[in-house]
């Protein structure tokens, strides 16, 4: 319903699209692989962004859903020879079912119960991924997972191919998220966000089935995470529990919040910011302290990002996406004085 910006909007989309398509041809393979990770995490963050930014619910255990997607797809395609595409689909369905089973009873309660339960779920599933070695390959995992391919014509083996695949999936995911956010469903999500100006009492009185809405957004965010997990697994063609630990769940939340939870661009910005800054940090550390162990880098990463996370929460609630307004808003006010 906003005023259409017509041509300008389409032109900028076209330009961005063009740049994104040309990027992998210009960059080294290492950088392209980073872009792939950015894309995958952006997909996860998009779903989580709807949950946190629109519906105001916090889940710290989304690594569980990322992992269910990843393991389902890996196991079905590796062990049972099922096409990876069906593996991804099955992952989505299974994740949806699990998320529904968890969400339905838990979302009746106040928000912090969801935080506790999802963290516990994150711990539980990470433990399961490691312990159930008869299916999951245990803590060592397994390799030689089939890559995605289009029939016999084309296999996504090279990084560049995978980049375009992830880009396409991300675009679709983004468009769907956007459609939902701008629709009556998105509006209903926002009515239950108590911290952000919602009012559950009023919403319910206007016909919004609050319980159902919360479960819907929770399941949606879980399914997005599972897609990310499956894509991850078919890219690496190796799986083990490490990338599906609690830290991944935390990281997803950090990315969403730093990028900007209330906007759909926030998760994308956040993912780019995270990987970009991470590379910068390890580069700088390797320059200053060449004989450094990876422990320093990893520890430094946690400290820096948790610090930024808290700063954003306190001072910049709209995230990086809101930074221009925060900076220029003051400039404009000064101009008027």
């Amino acid at each position, binding site marked *: 319903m906003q005023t259409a910006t017509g041509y300008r909007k389409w032109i900028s989309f076209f330009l961005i699209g063009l740049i994104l398509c040309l990027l992998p041809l210009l960059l080294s393979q290492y950088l392209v692989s980073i872009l792939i990770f950015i894309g995958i995490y952006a997909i996860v963050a998009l779903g989580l962004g709807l949950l946190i930014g629109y519906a105001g619910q916090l889940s710290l255990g989304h690594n569980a859903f990322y992992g269910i997607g990843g393991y389902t797809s890996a196991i079905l395609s590796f062990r049972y020879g099922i096409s990876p595409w069906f593996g991804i689909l099955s992952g989505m369905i299974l994740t949806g079912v699990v998320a529904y089973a968890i969400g339905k009873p838990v979302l009746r309660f106040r928000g912090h119960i969801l935080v506790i339960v999802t963290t516990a779920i994150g711990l539980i599933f990470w433990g399961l991924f490691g312990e159930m070695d008869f299916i999951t390959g245990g803590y060592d995992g397994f390799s030689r997972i089939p890559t995605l391919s289009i029939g016999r014509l084309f296999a996504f083996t090279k990084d560049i191919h995978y980049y375009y695949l992830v880009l396409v999936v991300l675009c679709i995911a983004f468009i769907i998220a956007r459609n939902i956010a701008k629709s009556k469903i998105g509006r209903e999500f926002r009515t239950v966000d108590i911290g952000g100006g919602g009012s559950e009492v009023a919403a319910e009185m206007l016909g919004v*089935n609050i319980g159902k809405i919360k479960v819907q957004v929770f399941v949606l965010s879980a399914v997005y995470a599972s897609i990310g997990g499956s894509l991850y697994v078919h890219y690496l063609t190796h799986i083990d529990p490490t990338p599906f630990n609690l830290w991944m769940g935390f990281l997803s939340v950090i990315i969403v919040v730093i990028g900007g939870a209330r906007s759909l661009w926030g998760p994308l910005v956040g993912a780019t910011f995270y990987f970009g800054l991470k590379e910068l940090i390890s580069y700088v550390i390797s320059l200053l302290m060449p004989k450094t162990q990876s422990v320093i880098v990893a520890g430094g990463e946690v400290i820096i990002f948790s610090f930024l996370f808290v700063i954003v929460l306190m001072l910049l609630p709209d995230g990086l996406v809101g930074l221009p307004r925060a900076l220029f808003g003051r400039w404009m006010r000064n101009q008027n004085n």
Partner: protein
Amino acid sequence: MDTQYLELKNISKDFGGLRAINHLSLNVGKGEVVCIIGPNGAGKTTLLNLITGVLPISSGEIYFKGKRIDRLPSYRICKLGINRSFQDVQLFTHMSVIENVMVGCHNRMRSTFPEVMFSLRRVNKEHQEAFERAVEKLSLFNLDKRIYDMPSNLALKDRKFLGIARALATEPELLLLDEPVGGLSVDEIKEISEKILKMQEEGLTLLFIEHRMELVRSVSERVIVLDFGQKLAEGTFDEVHANEQVINAYLGKEEE
């Protein structure tokens, strides 16, 4: 007049040891405008909360058009045709004026999740229709020029109007208003009186709580007086104002 429209049969509400509503029975007929008055703490808002499913009743039954509604959650009651405004308005403060009202329009929208995901033409059409309906409701209150404003930028009167417009967007048959003119000036009260009478003309049934007698006198056909969760008196505005018990409990103390 069909008095079986809204029926409260012997309802009580306890909060721990406190009995807020005590064996109360009352009826509202279709098309009526009924007002509930009474001292603070008499249980008036609690009564509205019980009817609209915000709180569960402790005993008794509530019927609407013959159907039992006292166990239903609020969103079901909304779908049955009852809606309300809130004493503290309860607007969605991060959403614009038009968006607040559009949530009310959702009541009549039928798009499903998959349809929305892919933004099918039907979804957009329905969205456009909802937008227009919302603007129409807002124009009743002269807010159609301010649809993109945020609630925090509105004056109290407009915020209250917005709350009512939002409730009206659900196309209710029975509208409950909780102190719609609290804090407003005499002129603003006249404005609302006119709007209420217009709503009644269009077939709406109204039950509202109010302290300001200007409003009560100008629109209500019947007045019910509540005290300590019980019905103290019932009748027309004049009858009730002549009632001694009512004067002692409530009216005599009024400065206005």
